[in-house]
């Protein structure tokens, strides 16, 4: 297929995944900040940091204004990762490759775009419904992709973009927890800590999954283990990396190209399969996640290069 079309599909996948993530990140942050002992904004501050959009923010990054940050992350078109930017770009990409996506996929994104202004207005009164709506769009989009797209290059590229973005997002979301400073040392493992992890699990719809996977009670070790190493958990780094390799394998079979992206993806996978949560905790969760983010980012560049984006 056309390289430009491949690029558009890849970014369409990434942007919808990113919009969904931003909605979940903010959802988690709002829940963090509702917990007792919270100063009412450290959750939002950590979400802001985790999203990595500080460079685009015009306000004071040290003393964040809650409403300004929310507006910035949801509705500011100068922020390339804001939900409005993601939806606009995904729809533009889908429109420019109308031939490569099904009617259902385009309609999902087009309707989201048409309905955005009204949802934005309503969000002033009820931000939770807005966030839920964004997640609903992402689900509708995923459904359209899964149910209607031919299993060929357009499908693979859209999925590949989503998988790369999702790996990036999970790593960032885990990092939020790292960024949230507990009021005092002795709270680690205490009820606040517990409540924060629960909020995080809920935001990725993994609370029940956790109960199934781990018989013991909630612990930070287990949550990190699940989100990094358990490939049955669809948002885990392991699951994302597995999917990235599967998709690149399909394309390799079709195009005969075997390049830097294939090699880097395999390396990323072996980094996850050859270690475990104990090693990561010893090494430092934040350090591990930062490295993963850098590697994943490089993989994205290599994909663009390999397929002549």
């Amino acid at each position, binding site marked *: *297929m*056309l390289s*430009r079309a*491949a690029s558009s599909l890849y970014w369409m996948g990434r942007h919808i995944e990113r919009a969904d993530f931003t909605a979940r990140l903010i959802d988690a942050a709002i829940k963090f900040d509702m917990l007792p002992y919270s100063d009412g904004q450290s959750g939002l501050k950590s979400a802001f940091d985790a999203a990595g959009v500080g460079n685009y923010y015009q306000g004071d990054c040290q003393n964040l204004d809650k409403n300004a940050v929310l507006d910035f992350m949801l509705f500011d078109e100068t922020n390339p990762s804001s939900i409005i930017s993601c939806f606009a770009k995904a729809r533009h990409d889908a429109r420019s490759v109308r*031939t490569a996506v099904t009617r259902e996929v385009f*309609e999902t994104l087009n309707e989201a775009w048409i309905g955005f202004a009204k949802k934005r207005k309503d969000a002033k009164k009820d931000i939770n419904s807005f966030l839920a709506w964004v997640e609903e769009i992402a689900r509708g989009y995923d459904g359209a992709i899964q149910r209607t797209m031919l299993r060929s290059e357009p499908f693979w590229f859209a999925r590949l973009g989503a998988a790369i973005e999702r790996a990036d997002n999970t790593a960032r979301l885990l990092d939020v927890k790292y960024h949230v400073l507990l009021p005092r040392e002795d709270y680690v493992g205490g009820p606040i800590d517990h409540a924060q992890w629960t909020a995080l699990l809920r935001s990725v719809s993994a609370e029940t999954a956790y109960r199934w996977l781990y018989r013991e009670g909630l612990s930070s070790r287990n949550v990190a283990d699940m989100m990094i190493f358990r490939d049955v958990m669809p948002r885990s780094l392991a699951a994302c990396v597995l999917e990235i390799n599967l998709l690149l394998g399909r394309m390799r079979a079709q195009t005969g190209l075997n390049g830097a992206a294939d090699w880097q993806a395999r390396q990323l996978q072996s980094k996850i399969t050859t270690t475990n949560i104990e090693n990561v905790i010893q090494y430092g969760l934040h350090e591990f996640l930062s490295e993963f983010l850098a590697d994943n980012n490089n993989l994205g560049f290599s994909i663009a290069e390999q397929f*002549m984006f």
Partner: protein
Amino acid sequence: MKKAFDEMWGDWGGEDPRGPYVNFAAWLEDISNEDLNLRKQAAEHIFRKTGITFAVYSNEEAEERIIPFDIIPRIISGKEWDDLSEGLIQRVNAINMFLSDIYGSREIMKAGILPDDLIYSNPQFRLQMTNINPPHDVWAHICGIDIVRTGANDFYVLEDNARTPSGVSYMLEDREAMERLFPNLIEKHKIRPVEHYPDALHRMLRSVAPNNCGGDPRCVVMTPGPYNSAFYEHSFLADHIGVELVEGHDLFVRDRQVFMRSTNGPLKVDVIYRRVDDDFIDPLMFDPNSMLGLPGLMDCYAAGNVTIVNAPGTGIADDKAIYSYMPEIVKFYTGKDAKLPNVETYRCREADSLKYVLDNLPELVVKLVDGSGGYGMLVGPTSTKAQIEDFRKHLIAEPHRFIAQPTLALSTCPTLTEKGLAPRHVDLRPFILTGSKGVEIVPGGLTRVALTEGSLVVNSSQGGGTKDTWVVDDIVEGA
């Protein structure tokens, strides 16, 4: 001006509907205006949802608009259509022979039928094409011939569109919308189908591939990009014929051949259905500032390694000054009188005509010879004095750029307005495909309707809408 002929009620606005509308009229009696309005809203929702939009230039607010769709169909009898299509085939064949001649031995000029300067000084004439033979000698592969009607048996050609006529996606979408909205009504009529247009288009494109392309020709649709007003149609067509939609920078030239950049590496391209104007397709041969085209495309074309659809230079055939000679052109090449008459046309380049036009401006329609989309025209009877006087200055300054025609009472068709059903003027644009194996026309075409009461301008860029066009076979002639 006398009352216009009505497609449904005929000349006198009588009690009985014309033959093609008998079934429809019976159906209409049982349906309330309220119900019609509901269906109309449903139709608009479908169009908005699927992104069937077009952009209007110099209108930043409405970056994308939906084209207004009227749910009352325009119905033509099978007999009327068969007569029309004979005339269309004759005309399009003549246009292709004319183009081949103009860029070849120029017999028609030697015979003194066309003045030399009308060709040579015409901005639509591409001298570069004189040394190039399009594969299979087909030039205007896709023509949109605008037809107007003034009476039961009076059809005229208003304009020939031989460059890149648009609107065919609306013809297909309108039918699909009608099938969704009125399944029972559709069932009651034997409507000739239009759904095979994309297949016919693809067949035509493949048939005109260069002879040396070998095996399975690769066709693409070339668009200026998503900001173009007709982008929806470009993507629609590429999608429905199952080929790639490319922009200029997706292509490159190597060894006088065109390739597209794909995830599999370079792929050779044999046929380009371009929706980019001549001026922009190759900055090395035409406008050097074009960012939309492919540098070197014309060199590949001259080498016979790629087919461009429509061929560059076909604009000369839809120039409105040339149009005025179409009866002679048809006669010259086919040896027969034109089956479809022209509208009487005054060439303002000729002194007598100019004088007549200037004296009668308030009654005439004046058009730019190379204009399209309803831009740069004056409709005398509906213009203010100031507009007419303003136009007069342009006309005196550059008379050769204009032609004038009497204001025709275009036929009307019942149309759903805010005040219920009311007559609105319509025209008809059938799409005619010419490949190496002959001409094919999908029955009907696009009916455009001027939604403003009394208006004669049907262009979508000027507030016109569209209607589904039915060619029906199961009706009694006459009535």
